[in-house]
């Protein structure tokens, strides 16, 4: 029995396994971004009518420096860079897969809101995704998105013309940086297929009121952070989302919003990654456009 107790204590004090690193699904195997020529898997397919001219595609790199841990992150800006000083810009925070190329059709789609290249769109790979350096971390993700905001600010963007759009995992930096602004205060928040917190993931999977801290050290909590957001809020979610459930995650975030204006788009038949497709691209683009114009 004495030996058992010793072994138990040793296990307790040597316990260090967490699931945090399993939460990110990046692909770092690419050597360059392919954009339209990328032949790997992409989340949605869009037609040639949404193609963006090469002259309007600007690959970028920024230095992002959380706690002195300087990393080079890769981004892409679609549109006329000169417009940043005068017009509305959409900052797109992608989901938890691979890299920018996986989300390239979505980014192109947003560059067609209100007409081709009506609004500039900036999207980045968080650290650890694609060609961006370093391991993926929660704080690093916030810093990387903020580094994009810093670049936009340097190009002349002001708070009132910044719209931030977060899809899935990207709902975390989008919500965090709207609720707790750093370099810029986004004027509008758009979330697609957002999640509420790791607690809800665990509860959905286990059916019990188990806390997320049993598995991860993540502090992402869109369900609470959204309460601080006063800016207009657009929420869109697939009713049939089997990965981030609409009823437990999305409705929680939407229900906790207490700001000035909100609109909800519950898309019948929509799964996690195909909401724009199921909704129809023209309808999707129109909904986004109308919200930005508000």
């Amino acid at each position, binding site marked *: *029995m004495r030996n*058992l107790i010793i072994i*138990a204590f040793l*296990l*307790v004090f040597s*316990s*260090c*396994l*967490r*699931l945090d690193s*399993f*939460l*990110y*699904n990046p*692909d770092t195997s690419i050597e360059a971004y392919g954009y339209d020529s990328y032949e790997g898997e992409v989340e949605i397919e869009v037609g040639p009518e949404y193609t963006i001219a090469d002259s309007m595609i600007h690959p970028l790199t920024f230095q992002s420096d959380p706690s002195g841990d300087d990393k080079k992150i890769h981004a892409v800006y679609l549109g006329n860079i000169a417009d940043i000083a005068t017009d509305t810009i959409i900052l797109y925070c992608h989901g*938890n*897969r*691979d890299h920018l190329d996986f989300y390239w059709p979505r980014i192109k789609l947003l560059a067609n809101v209100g007409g081709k290249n009506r609004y500039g769109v900036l999207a980045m790979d968080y650290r650890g995704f694609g060609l961006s350096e370093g391991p993926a971390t929660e704080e690093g993700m916030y810093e990387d998105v903020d580094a994009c905001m810093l670049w936009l600010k340097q190009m002349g963007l002001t708070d009132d013309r910044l719209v931030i759009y977060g899809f899935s995992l990207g709902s975390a930096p989008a919500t965090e940086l709207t609720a707790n602004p750093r370099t810029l205060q986004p004027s509008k928040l758009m979330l697609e297929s957002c999640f*509420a*917190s790791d*607690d*809800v*993931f*665990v*509860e959905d*999977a*286990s*059916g*019990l*009121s*188990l*806390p*997320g*801290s*049993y*598995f991860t*050290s993540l502090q992402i909590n869109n*369900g*609470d952070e959204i309460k601080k957001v006063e800016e207009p809020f657009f929420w869109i979610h697939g009713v*049939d989302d*089997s*990965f981030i459930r609409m009823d*437990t995650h999305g409705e*929680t975030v939407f229900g*906790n919003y207490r700001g000035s204006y909100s609109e909800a788009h519950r898309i019948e038949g929509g799964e996690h990654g195909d909401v724009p497709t199921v909704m129809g691209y023209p309808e999707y683009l129109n909904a986004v456009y109308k919200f930005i114009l508000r």
Partner: protein
Amino acid sequence: MATIRSFILYSLILFFASCNATRVIKPLEKGEKQLSAGLGGPGIIYAGAPIPMPLTSVNYAQGVDSNVTLSVGMHTTSLAFGVLQSDVSLGIRAYQSKSERFGLTATPGIHVLYDLYENNFRTYPQLEATTWWQYSESKQHLLYGGLGTWIELFKQKAHGQVQTNELMPWITVGHQFNLERWSYLTEFKYLGFQHKTAPSVVDFVSPGGNGTIGFYFGVSRTIGK
């Protein structure tokens, strides 16, 4: 790679609710002591085949008297993840036939979980009833089956949502192969059959999209009397 990571995450999430085989099938004799180790968990389809999650636990049991066995378990996989999880239960001989080849064991117990990172504490009372049948006159081997449940004490979930799952039940069928000092257990559980698990990113062995089938293996050694 993404699928594999998601599979690991979600499978591990389920392990707390399905983490061990039946602790006490037939109560031990008074003073009898037994050490056990268990392996297994919820079933998932991986590479086209159903496999159990390799979740582990160790257990100590002692016959308090001839009708009551105290069992204390420690969940070693969760411990490795910084969660102290222990279960304590009493296996009570509720019925035994005159031939001593058939019986019913009632096992109330409690699971306690505490994470070393954010000090979150949870406790789940457990009720279980197991019927066993010694199917051979000359051998001690047992076929058994039972019904059990965890009881959810929390009425509220994250973000103030209402907890509608008050029970997390299971049905058990198993076999215990008993030698003089060693015994070997194989068990199937249908876990959380009222809880919808499909569609999900993980391909659970999930009849009708509800719950999951768990597979468990155990080995026990009698260490004294």
